[in-house]
């Protein structure tokens, strides 16, 4: 059994790649290599995902019974706040851009690195320092404002460590901006010869659209959070009506970022799914340019819909109408994407390997998440459903069912490229199915709960809602099992997994034409792109592999 050996054979027969070129903790913490920074991000977000997951488990356990049993109200409020802060700001937002984007975006366009490697490293440090401050706020006693930090509760009434958490999120914002600037410049300036805009993989288009939102949106949340921190510490009177401020102003400023932030989280996921569907159907994406431009139009329209979070706040009926209308417009490019992915599968050669399972899971769950969004953007129905479990179920379908599924699909897809190791495919399938089933069991009952009127962020609740809460908690344990299994076999793969070939999926794209793991500078010679993306009708590009590894053998090895 040989492995891909297209890199420089090292002195003792070992190939040199980005993972073993240098050793020691310094070589990692001071690295400027985009791939290593991607790995650093992966470690960071895994930590926050586990942390947020622990908070979520405690919330679900508490809600098993209507009364207060496990934790007190104050603790419960801190749990759901910190679950939201950890998952949104420190897991979802940096996940695909930080990990997968850093790892493969430069390789996909034939570049040796991103445009500003030092800024790239700085972005990781902003993320870690911001995360550290949020973590410190948790250790000191936590925050209880909800991740939305609504005023005047957050500015005047809360007794928790709000300012510290705000500064943490503020600093983390710079990580987003730096990544955005970096990706945008890289895509503009560093494409290999022949890599025209319409030959870019759709993952790159999606990252480009995301970068646009990151650059335009993040400064607004930074200013908002800074004003809130100042209000809290110095009582400057911007948001607190007792000081002459306007509490609803905060909501406008907050959602002006936080709605586009939803697209910072989901659009990169669209990119991943496009790659997966094409590869495992062995077909070019149906309607390439429609998929590419729908990402951009979602990114732009996303800035004009923030008011749909505020239909019940007493904003003018006419303003509400405009926000509702534009929200419905976003449904169109989103639907176009779903239809194009489905059409891509038509007459394809479909193989249901684990990344594809995640991609199909994504389409199913995201469709439900998207369609239930229509109930919330319809003004009349939103009045009833606003601030209930229906909203909770809706955004978990989009964020976890959509984004996390896409991220895990992408992680399974590029894991062999990143680590040079294979994981156990049967275990991956089992955990994929567990996650899909557990997710639905957890969150589908919440749609019903919300329709029946169960408000969100309730520590104790009327008894009639209990049965659905029990169902939801039961589902969450299946979900946790799925995540646990996934973590276990990835760890096993890292230390004991068999070597991965350069192109285990027989996929198209520049990242599959270099060895796994890639060498320090990705390409030995500048690649020249001569064909369209997703040219699955063409024969495989054969690397200088002594013996091409066939997928059948790989599977045997994997077992």
């Amino acid at each position: 059994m040989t492995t891909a050996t297209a890199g420089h054979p090292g002195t003792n027969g070992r190939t040199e790649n980005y993972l073993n070129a240098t050793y020691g903790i310094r070589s990692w913490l001071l690295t400027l290599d985009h791939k290593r920074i991607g790995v650093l991000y992966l470690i960071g977000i895994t930590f926050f995902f586990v942390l947020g997951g622990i908070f979520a488990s405690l919330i679900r356990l508490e809600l098993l019974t209507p009364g207060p049993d496990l934790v007190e109200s104050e603790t419960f409020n801190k749990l759901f706040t910190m679950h939201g802060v950890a998952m949104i700001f420190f897991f979802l937002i940096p996940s695909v851009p930080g990990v997968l984007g850093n790892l493969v975006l430069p390789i996909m366009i034939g570049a040796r690195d991103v445009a500003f490697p030092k800024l790239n490293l700085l972005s990781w440090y902003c993320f870690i320092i911001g995360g550290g401050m949020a973590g410190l706020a948790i250790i000191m006693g936590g925050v209880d404002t909800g991740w939305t930090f609504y005023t005047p509760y957050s500015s005047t009434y809360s007794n928790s460590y709000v300012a510290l958490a705000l500064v943490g999120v503020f600093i983390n914002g710079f990580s987003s901006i730096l990544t955005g600037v970096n990706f945008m410049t890289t895509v503009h300036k560093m494409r290999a010869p022949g890599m025209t805009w319409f030959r870019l993989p759709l993952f790159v288009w999606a990252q480009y659209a995301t970068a646009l939102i990151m650059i335009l949106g993040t400064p607004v949340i930074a200013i908002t959070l800074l004003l809130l921190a100042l209000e809290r510490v110095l009582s400057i009177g911007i948001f607190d009506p007792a000081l002459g401020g306007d509490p609803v102003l905060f909501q406008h400023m907050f959602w002006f970022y936080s709605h586009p932030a939803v697209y910072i989280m989901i659009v990169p996921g669209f990119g991943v799914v496009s790659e997966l569907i094409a590869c495992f159907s062995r077909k070019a994406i149906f309607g390439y340019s429609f998929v590419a431009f729908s990402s951009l139009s979602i990114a732009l329209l996303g800035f004009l819909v923030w008011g749909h979070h505020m239909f019940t706040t007493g904003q003018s009926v006419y303003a509400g109408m405009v926000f509702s209308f534009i929200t419905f417009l976003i449904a169109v490019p989103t639907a176009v994407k779903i239809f194009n992915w489905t059409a891509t599968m038509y007459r394809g050669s479909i193989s249901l390997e684990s990344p594809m399972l995640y991609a199909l899971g994504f389409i199913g769950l995201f469709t439900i998440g998207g369609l239930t969004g229509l109930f919330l953007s319809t003004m009349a129905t939103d009045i009833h459903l606003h601030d209930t479990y229906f909203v909770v179920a809706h955004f978990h379908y989009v964020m976890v069912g959509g984004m996390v599924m896409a991220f895990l699909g992408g992680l399974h897809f590029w894991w062999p490229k990143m680590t040079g190791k294979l994981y156990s495919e049967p275990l991956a399938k089992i955990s994929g199915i567990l996650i899909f089933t557990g997710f639905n069991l957890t969150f589908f009952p919440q749609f019903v709960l919300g329709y029946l009127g169960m408000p969100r962020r309730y520590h104790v609740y009327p008894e009639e809602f209990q049965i659905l809460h029990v169902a939801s908690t039961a589902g969450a344990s299946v979900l946790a099992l799925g995540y646990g299994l996934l973590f276990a076999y990835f760890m096993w793969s890292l230390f004991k997994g068999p070597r991965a070939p350069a192109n285990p999926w027989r996929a198209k794209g520049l990242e599959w034409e270099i060895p796994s793991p890639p060498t320090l500078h990705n390409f030995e010679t500048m690649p020249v792109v001569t064909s369209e993306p997703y040219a699955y009708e063409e024969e495989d590009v054969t690397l200088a592999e002594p013996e091409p590894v066939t997928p059948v053998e790989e599977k045997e090895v994997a077992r």
Partner: protein
Amino acid sequence: MVALSLLFCVLIAGAIVFFSIRYRRRSEDERPKPVHGSIPLEIAWSVIPLIMSLGIFFLGAELYFRMYTVPENAIDIYAVGKQWMWKIQHPEGKREINELHVPVGQPVTMTMTSEDVIHAFSIPAFRVKRDVVPGRYTTMWFEATKVGEYHLFCAEYCGTQHSTMIGKVVVMEQNDYQNWLGGGVSGESMVEAGERQFQQLGCHTCHKSQSGGRGPTLVGVFGSPVQLTSGEVVVADESYLRESVLTPRASIVNGYKPIMPTFQGQISEETLLQLISYLKSLGGGEE
């Protein structure tokens, strides 16, 4: 809408499952023919969802407008939210906490504000919900159609005991409601209480019942346009009156001097609501 959503879910899921089976990979070296796209198809699946979503939008917006148009014969009930309770005042003077008694078959307008943070007044059974914001009034209306008891929730997260800021709405027959209203100890209606406050706080020394006082007369002001020194014309609604009491210098009526002292921090939200209902009783509007 549920049917439409189900249709799309089944359609997409069905297509995925069907394609996965029908076009499963039969040999490792299979290379399917590329299909690059189809403009007519793209247009079709852009335009059809667009028409559908616009249809839903119009239905929803139309209903929303109706939800915000208060019927003529609605009765006024006032609510003040504070951490963590609802304080309700009926115009007849009856007060209650965390309970709201309303008559069946009668439109009710709630005028609401908060003493501290943002709350939301939500009655899921009536499909109504409205944020209750400190520093301003928000209103909503509903008409209970069935006698019974229903949940009253605070739907906007408001701090530690948020989930205990709940109560019940008791819908009663007209007669029972009248009896219930009469069973109170106060005996003083909101208007009467407001009038008493108007005297006690000394408002009447400047705001006389005829013009010529140091402040404008307040008879017939509610609901009418008021010319300000800035040249702007505003309608004297609840929020305007509230602002004039708490921060009198924010908008000065044309022809008067900014001499009124502020009552910020001196009167409670409930007293303010009584004052306003007294001012409302002085008439006004476009009759």
